[in-house]
């Protein structure tokens, strides 16, 4: 990827921090961190109260590790990572899942979207890119989530629950996630809309492996997410 005056990459002096929320990912996280460090300047793994050696593996892989003493949820872990990255002068913040579904090769594309066109938020979309081995059920659920989010936020997104995103510092500093668990994805979209942030969707690849499917949300997860979202909005 060429480095222009306003295109962030690992090789110029802009600071790109990747936030990786992780829960019981001891078998994968070290590999993920190593892949990421080849592309970005800094990786921070937020260990969300894991019971395995996620923290140790991430640290050995070269990441900075923040550890929640109790499990709080992916939303909480992301916000912790954001706070750390902003305090340390990150110019751009990337969010990346620890289960191996994301492809590090997509990160430069996200950063390019922020740099070249001065967008504030770049959101990965598997439906603009590719989703290898996605089940029909998962596809239907994601489509339903897209419809729901369009109704609540008004944003015409094609993929509303994709953990691969990139933010300019200024945008990240205005976002404040209060939904600790999986409803944070909808809350994030709502805030992007409410704050009037300049967003763009970028085609990315998602690969579903037996491991990631095992780690994925169960049958009643959509009900839990919806309940968390509705109660969260009601309670403010």
């Amino acid at each position, binding site marked *: 990827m060429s480095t222009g005056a306003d295109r962030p990459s690992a090789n110029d002096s802009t600071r790109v921090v990747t936030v990786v929320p992780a829960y019981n990912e001891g078998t994968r996280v070290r590999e993920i961190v190593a892949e990421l460090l080849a592309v970005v300047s800094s990786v921070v793994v937020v260990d969300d109260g894991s019971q395995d050696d996620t923290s140790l593996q991430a640290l050995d892989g070269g990441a900075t590790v923040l550890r929640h003493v109790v499990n709080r949820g992916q939303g909480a872990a992301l916000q912790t990572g954001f706070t750390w990255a902003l305090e340390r002068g990150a110019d751009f913040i990337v969010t990346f899942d620890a289960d191996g579904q994301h492809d590090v090769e997509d990160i430069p594309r996200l950063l390019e979207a922020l740099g070249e066109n001065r967008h504030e938020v770049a959101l990965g979309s598997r439906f603009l890119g590719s989703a290898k081995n996605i089940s029909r059920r998962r596809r239907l659920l994601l489509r339903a989530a897209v419809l729901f989010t369009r109704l609540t936020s008004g944003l015409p997104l094609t993929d509303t629950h994709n953990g691969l995103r990139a933010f300019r510092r200024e945008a990240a500093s205005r976002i404040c996630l209060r939904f*600790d668990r999986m409803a944070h994805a909808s809350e994030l979209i709502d805030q992007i809309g409410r704050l009037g942030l300049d967003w763009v969707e970028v085609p990315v690849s998602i690969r579903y492996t037996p491991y990631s499917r095992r780690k994925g949300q169960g049958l009643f997860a959509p009900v839990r997410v919806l309940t968390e979202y509705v109660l969260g909005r009601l309670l403010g």
Partner: protein
Amino acid sequence: MNAFQVGGITVAVVLIFLTLLGMRRGRLNRGAAALWSLLWLAMGISIAKPNLTVVLARALGIDRGADLVFYFGIVIMLVGFFAVMARLRTIEDNITLISRHIALSEADSPTEPEEESAPKSTRPIASSNR
């Protein structure tokens, strides 16, 4: 007055006493104590004078006093549920804030400190657009 009424009024009086005791000991603020006391008082009065619920129900367009008590009970339970959920939400938020504070305070850096590899935020920025 029948046995149920005697028992019910006794319970109401005891609950009022415990509520006021709770307020005195600092476990309840005045507003909450007043509300709970009114609730126990209303309970006692409706047990002592059940016909009053009929009069009140008819004034509100409800046929039976028992229905009024039922609807009132549902409203009270919903209000209580909402208050408990709001309180739980606050507690959960506080737990997250505490966990975050600890995580940020005890951040673990890799064995090669970032300071040794010159964190890029301290390097001169190539672009002058910022």
